[in-house]
């Protein structure tokens, strides 16, 4: 009997709904995956695919009017969703950290940078004095590549790239086992993007944390993650090791994503976009949510939502091309 | 014959659904409905009061003076033996007259001024703005008191005093609306085909400004009522023997020490309900027209 070794993080059957005035939106559906120590997981999807909601669920911070309606999230064996207030706050920032998308708006504008750190450290480790906290902050700044003098500045005095480094430093301050980075580079310009991503990799080597990279840009995660989860309309449509995905993407959506990545080495290329638009999640189409845009639809696709088929050891695809009922 | 009745029918049916559709618009719609109900109820009650009140409100000694509310006099009697209930039913007349008049004056003066000034722009606009801002910054009631004191008592004078204070509000609202509309492409287009200023103002800008005018007018109504009450309290009210809530409040004040709470309470509640009615309409309309994106 093959017993799988316990993972650092195991998510099973997670579903999240937003109860808005205009209807219930199923933002995340039927999500199961695992993450191991030091591993990098890439989560890819368009806006509205539910990837940010997924990230926030992992620290139990889905904003009103959202609710987690089903599933378990096991961190080192404990179900986060059953935590009380105190344990949840202990979890956030210390065991799992979150780096937000827009560094321009993620820091408190009326507070100096150093106070962000002092507050963070002393919230989780009350015995630490302010000066000890500042010392640790300076070290963190060195690790993320900001001059230590900047700790006295206000957020608006820093550039976008620097602010993102500050966010990363805050995320690492208490040595978490998992760092979730939600579109860490989308709000930055291209040159800074690469630097930040490299920084994350370096820090991972130093601090040894698991990293979850949430992005819409497949090219980022192809290079920098161990395995990738492709999301569409709140569901996982494909899960595979990065190299496998690159070589043999199976779900039509993932294939479309791959085809739309421009290749700088090709002199001329036609970029193929995926036609259509993501579905309205208040009224999703019956059957597979991707069928309106899929080049390979079969009759069954319009009727029944396909399950996640396992096509090889670490490869899963949610598509009738790989199993189940085929229409005759 | 048939055509006319059809036209009338469609006119009525175009008004009716608007009330029903208000209810569907959530909390804001309900606020407007409740407000309209309150205001209409009070206006109607005031108008039909001569027929529904149990006693003549001005007749003294219909009952013993200073009798607490009982079955015969549900709101009790005041120091002159007048029935407080009848006075509560009939006392809104002056206040309504004053507020309607002051709102009318504000509309007649504030709206054209605002339109003209903001559309003209330049130094003219700046001068008007400076004057209006200065009036606006001044404590409203103090200004109204000063004007009323100089003009003397009476419905028209009270209305003028109140209008002086609130014209700047109208001016500002109109002006900010016009400024934002002025830059819109369809106005530019109209100008480029040589439309006269008057046409542009009346055909393009004014219709878009109307919703804001309605909102500020309703809020203004509420303020006018409260200011009128305040002026009466100071002694600048209308010197007639007509039953008036404001006057009852002023008069009832000295009766408080003898514990006769009912003389001021009921007129006070009526004023609150009337002001509240207008405020709700204004709040609701404002929300409907510019929904706050709280989701």
């Amino acid at each position, binding site marked *: 009997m093959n017993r799988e070794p316990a993972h650092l993080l195991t998510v099973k059957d997670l579903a999240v709904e937003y109860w808005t005035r205009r209807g219930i939106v199923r933002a995340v559906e039927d999500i199961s995956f695992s993450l191991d120590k030091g591993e990098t997981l890439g989560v890819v999807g368009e806006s509205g695919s539910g990837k940010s909601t997924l990230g926030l669920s992992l*620290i139990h*911070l889905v*904003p*009103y009017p959202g609710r987690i309606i089903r599933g378990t999230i096991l961190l080192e064996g404990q179900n986060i969703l059953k935590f009380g207030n105190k344990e949840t*706050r*202990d*979890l*956030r*920032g*210390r065991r799992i*950290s*979150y780096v*937000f998308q*827009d560094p321009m708006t*993620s820091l408190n*504008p*009326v507070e100096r940078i150093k106070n962000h750190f002092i*507050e*963070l450290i002393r*919230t*989780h480790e009350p015995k630490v004095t302010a000066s000890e906290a500042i010392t640790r902050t300076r070290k963190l700044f060195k690790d993320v590549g900001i001059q230590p003098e900047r700790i006295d500045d206000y957020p*608006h005095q820093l550039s976008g790239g620097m602010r993102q480094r500050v966010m990363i430093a805050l995320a690492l301050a208490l040595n978490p086992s998992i760092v979730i980075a939600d579109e860490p580079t989308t709000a930055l310009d291209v040159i800074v993007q690469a630097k930040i991503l490299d920084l994350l990799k370096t820090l991972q080597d130093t601090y040894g944390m698991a990293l979850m990279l949430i992005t819409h840009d497949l090219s980022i995660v192809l290079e920098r993650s161990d395995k990738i989860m492709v999301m569409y309309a709140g569901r996982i449509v494909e899960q595979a090791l990065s190299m496998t995905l690159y070589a043999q993407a199976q779900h039509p959506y993932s294939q479309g994503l791959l085809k739309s990545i421009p290749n700088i080495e090709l002199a001329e290329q036609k970029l193929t976009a995926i036609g259509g638009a993501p579905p309205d999640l208040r009224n999703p189409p019956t059957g597979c949510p991707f069928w309106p845009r899929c080049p390979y639809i079969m009759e069954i696709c319009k009727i029944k939502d396909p399950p996640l088929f396992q096509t090889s050891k670490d490869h899963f695809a949610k598509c009738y091309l790989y199993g189940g009922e085929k229409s005759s | 014959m048939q055509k006319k009745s059809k036209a009338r029918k469609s006119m009525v049916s175009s008004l009716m659904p608007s009330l029903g559709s208000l209810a569907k618009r959530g909390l804001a719609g309900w606020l407007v409905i409740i407000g309209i109900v309150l205001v209409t109820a009070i206006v109607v009650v005031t108008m039909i009061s001569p027929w529904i009140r149990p006693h003549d409100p001005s007749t003294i000694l219909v009952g013993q003076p200073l009798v607490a509310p009982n079955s015969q006099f549900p709101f009790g009697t005041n120091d002159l033996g007048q029935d407080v209930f009848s006075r509560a039913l009939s006392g809104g007349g002056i206040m309504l007259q004053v507020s309607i008049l002051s709102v009318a004056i504000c509309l007649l003066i504030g709206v054209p001024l605002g339109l003209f000034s903001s559309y003209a722009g330049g130094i003219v606009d700046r001068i008007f703005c*400076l*004057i209006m*801002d*200065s*009036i606006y*910054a*001044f*404590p*409203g*009631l*103090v*200004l109204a*008191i*000063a004007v009323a004191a*100089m*003009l*003397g008592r009476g419905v028209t004078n009270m209305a003028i005093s109140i209008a002086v204070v609130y014209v700047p509000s109208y001016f500002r609202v109109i002006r900010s609306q016009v400024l934002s509309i002025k830059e819109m492409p369809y106005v530019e287009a109209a100008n480029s085909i040589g439309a006269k200023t008057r046409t542009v103002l009346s055909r393009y800008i004014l219709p878009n400004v109307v919703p804001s005018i309605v909102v500020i007018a309703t809020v203004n109504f*509420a303020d006018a009522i409260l200011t009128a*009450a*305040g002026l009466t*309290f*100071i*002694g*600048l009210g209308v010197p007639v023997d007509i039953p008036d809530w404001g006057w009852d*409040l002023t008069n009832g*004040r000295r009766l*408080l020490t003898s514990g006769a*709470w009912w003389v*001021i*309470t009921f007129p*006070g509640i009526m*004023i*609150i309900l009337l*002001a*509240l009615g207008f*405020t709700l309409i204004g709040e609701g309309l404002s929300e409907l027209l510019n929904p*706050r994106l*709280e989701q």
Partner: protein
Amino acid sequence: MTLRSYVISRIILTIPMIFILLTMVFVVIRILPGDPVLLHFEKAENLAAMEEMRHRLGLDKPIWVQYFEYVAGIFRGDLGESMQDYSPVAQQIWSAFPATMELAIFSMVVAVAVGIFFGVESSKAYNKPQDHMIRIFGIVAYAIPVFFLGMILQITLGVGLHLLPTGLRFNPTLSTPTGISIGNVHFSTGLYTVDSLLEGNIYKFVETLRYLFLPSLTLGLVLSGVFIRLTRSNMLETLRLDFVTAARARGLSENKVTYSYALRNAFLPVLTMMGLQFATLLGGAVLTETTFSWPGLGRYIVDRIGFRDYTAIQGAVVLFGIFVSVVSLVVDLLYAYLDPRIRL
């Protein structure tokens, strides 16, 4: 724009506004009714007395001369002479002005405190029953005539409970607080709270607060509606912002997030609103002072109306106007100083 240039331009802007204010008052009182002296005497009977008054008060001079003397007088601190006894208006309102200021300050404190407290509670309980109740309270509070609320409070808390005085500013059996003298210099603010503390007299201090309580509660409650709504909407907006979610994601407690993060960022608009509401506050103060027999500037004006003393009214109204302009200037400058985004 730098802080310095903002301060300078703001101060410069105040000057034309004050001039317009002065002119406005002049127009209303001297020009509007035609002849203020006639109004004072009501009937054109005693022509000789009327002429004498006109002459003594300088009201028989050409309008332009009157205007010039009026403005010049104000800069000297001369607010004219009373029609009743020709005594200088400025002296008459010498103690009335601090009384109004004290009432205004405490009422504003009540309004802001109540407003912030309920505004925060309301935002925390978004869309739940408490939220709706608080919002309704805010709307209704503004629809209550301030003097009506004052009278109700007088009956219930004052007379009914025998706890608090229902009129006057200070206990008539005691001497009023006058501040402290150090050497030859006498420090007195006219604010009884401050002066009694300067005197070191705690009993007088408590008495002052007892008399201040009902009037400032009345005025403060009526004004609080605006602050409740402002705080609530600012909090709701701020609580949705990224840096608040980011703070929660770092494990900070809800209390910390609500007060230290959201409220601090939502506070500056409250400050601006305080400045904007100050004029309304003073208007309400007039009615409150009348209700509670509070010897302030508002009650002075109301009394003078009874005496048809129009020059006195003019002087008092001018003082009101200048007071509001100065306060509004101070608030704007304070706001500019506090907002770190403007500083640099």
